[in-house]
């Protein structure tokens, strides 16, 4: 009997002592934290993707609480809904941001852009880009080695083995921007997703002169300027033989798409056209029709 008693007493004493020490330590090293940080963090998607520009959701939450206005802060993954909730916790108003999506600005498939040499180094776009211009005549286009796919935390971008180009999965992409940073050729851009996912963009980043670009790739922008002339909203600029459509100004009229001689301007998710000029991208139109 005494053995049991001794054991219980000893263990009890050790337990009580340890509890006391733990309590004292926790008091001594207690960190005063604004309780709202945890609240904000709970409202965030916990993807820790870094798309907001902060190292993880906790840091973003701290930044939100600290900031005087939420104007500069945006969680691309959670979107407007999340930012509104964060704003509600902090008693502020979130700025209105249009939903964005990653857009791959290269259409140089194996067919359109013939391979001129065989790359045999490590499967990594950054390594290939630092080495040389790439395995095609276009030294601006996609290398197809999948740094974007590797960087995506949402499984939203994949290299299509047939075209060797990345494709964005629309409903998974959170516009966190990881792939934009990962791409050594600056091909991927975050653009407005557009109403009903309808958007128009120049799917090329080649800055070579027209003839050189066209020789390397059938669907390269040759900087001819036809799209610029036809655009009624002044949304298209041409710099270094390359057209760029400003998505703030673009009103999705689709005039530029028709006049592009190399079909390097893409339109996505539009209903089929009624007029006579044949649609440039039938499959894309059919997908939503």
């Amino acid at each position, binding site marked *: 009997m005494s053995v049991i008693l001794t054991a219980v007493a000893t263990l009890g004493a050790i337990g009580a002592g340890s509890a006391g020490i733990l309590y004292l330590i926790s008091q001594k090293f207690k960190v005063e934290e604004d309780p709202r940080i945890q609240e904000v963090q709970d409202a965030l998607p916990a993807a820790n993707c870094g798309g907001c520009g902060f190292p993880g959701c906790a840091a973003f939450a701290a930044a939100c609480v600290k900031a005087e206005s939420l104007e500069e802060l945006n969680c691309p993954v959670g979107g407007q809904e999340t930012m509104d909730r964060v704003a509600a916790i902090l008693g502020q108003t979130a700025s209105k941001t249009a939903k964005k999506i990653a857009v791959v600005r290269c259409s140089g498939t194996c067919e359109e852009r013939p*391979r*001129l*040499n*065989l*790359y*045999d*180094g*490590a499967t990594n776009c950054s390594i290939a880009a630092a*080495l040389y211009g790439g*395995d095609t005549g276009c030294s601006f286009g996609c290398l197809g080695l999948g740094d974007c796919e590797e960087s995506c935390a949402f499984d939203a971008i994949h290299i299509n083995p047939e075209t060797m180009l990345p494709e964005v999965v629309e409903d998974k992409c959170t516009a966190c921007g990881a792939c934009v940073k990962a791409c050594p050729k600056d091909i991927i851009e975050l653009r407005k997703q557009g109403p009903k996912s309808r958007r128009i963009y120049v799917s090329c980043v080649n800055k070579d002169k027209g003839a050189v670009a066209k020789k390397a790739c059938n669907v390269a922008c040759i900087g001819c300027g036809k799209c610029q002339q036809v655009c009624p909203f002044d949304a298209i600029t041409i710099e270094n033989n390359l057209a760029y459509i400003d998505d703030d100004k673009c009103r999705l009229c689709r005039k530029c798409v028709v006049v592009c001689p190399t079909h390097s301007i893409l339109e996505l998710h539009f209903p089929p056209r009624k007029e006579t000029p044949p649609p440039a991208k039938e499959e894309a139109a059919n997908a939503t029709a």
Partner: protein
Amino acid sequence: MEQKLIVSPSPHVHSGDTIPRNMYAVLIALIPAFLVALYTFRLDALLITALSVLFCVGFEYLIVRFVMKKEPAILDGSAIITGVLLAFNVPSNLPVWILALGALFAIGVVKLSFGGLGNNIFNPAIAGRIFLLISFPAQMTSWPATAIAGEATDAVSSATVLGLLKHSPEALPALQQMFLGFESGSLGEMSAAALLLGLVYLLWRRVITWHIPFTILATVALFTGILFLIDPLPQYNPLIHLFSGGLMLGAVFMATDYVTSPLTKKGMIIYGAGIGFITVAIRLWGAYPEGISFAILLMNAFTPLINTYTTPKRFGEAVKHG
């Protein structure tokens, strides 16, 4: 020249060294020890070794193919080495089903569950041996009397040198007999001479460097040597320690396993010294007569830590002005 040019970053030449080349060199280095085992235990040695290799390669193939669903690379030779080393670490009269269990544990649990060759933390053969030693102590420690020592080969249990050292030092065999390897013990650990021959081959082929085996043996000799000088008892005799038990097999073939040993020379020396020290400590003061496998296993666990804290000697670190 119609085909496309190949473009890759430099360098554009390769030494031609391959993983199989290194693995098969280890197998060749194990041949002398195998011949001694064959001479001592006759057909039992062949049977146990062949079955162990068969089990290891078979389990590797089946698990990689059907569980991990990858293309098995059994020809790289690593599973064969695990098989041979496992066989060399068990008595020649071990029941086959126990051997199979050891192979399954070594390959399935210790090697493949970590991702296969290159990713395992512990040496599969060592871990397999320890698994068997703890699970089947009786079968793992009843060695048959050798053909030389006891005329009749059939199941007469005989003690190993280290067992004798622990319990009855007066019955020890002569030193040169230990060195050549006709004392009793596990299959491949018998002959220090044959194992040293393997070491010379490995060093010559530059498969391993001297650092690990040398530091292990030196630490064992030094540690026991100091004790022997203080108190010259046979259980402290450094020569007996060097040439008995699994020390030589462990130091040359198991501790030098690429995957589970440190990368840098400094690291290798720390690792080797640790193994030597723990081995002697277990042999002298532990419950088991032999400690090399526990020592290697423990130091395997320290390898990542050693790799983190030892850096190679950098160029320009010690600036000479001469």
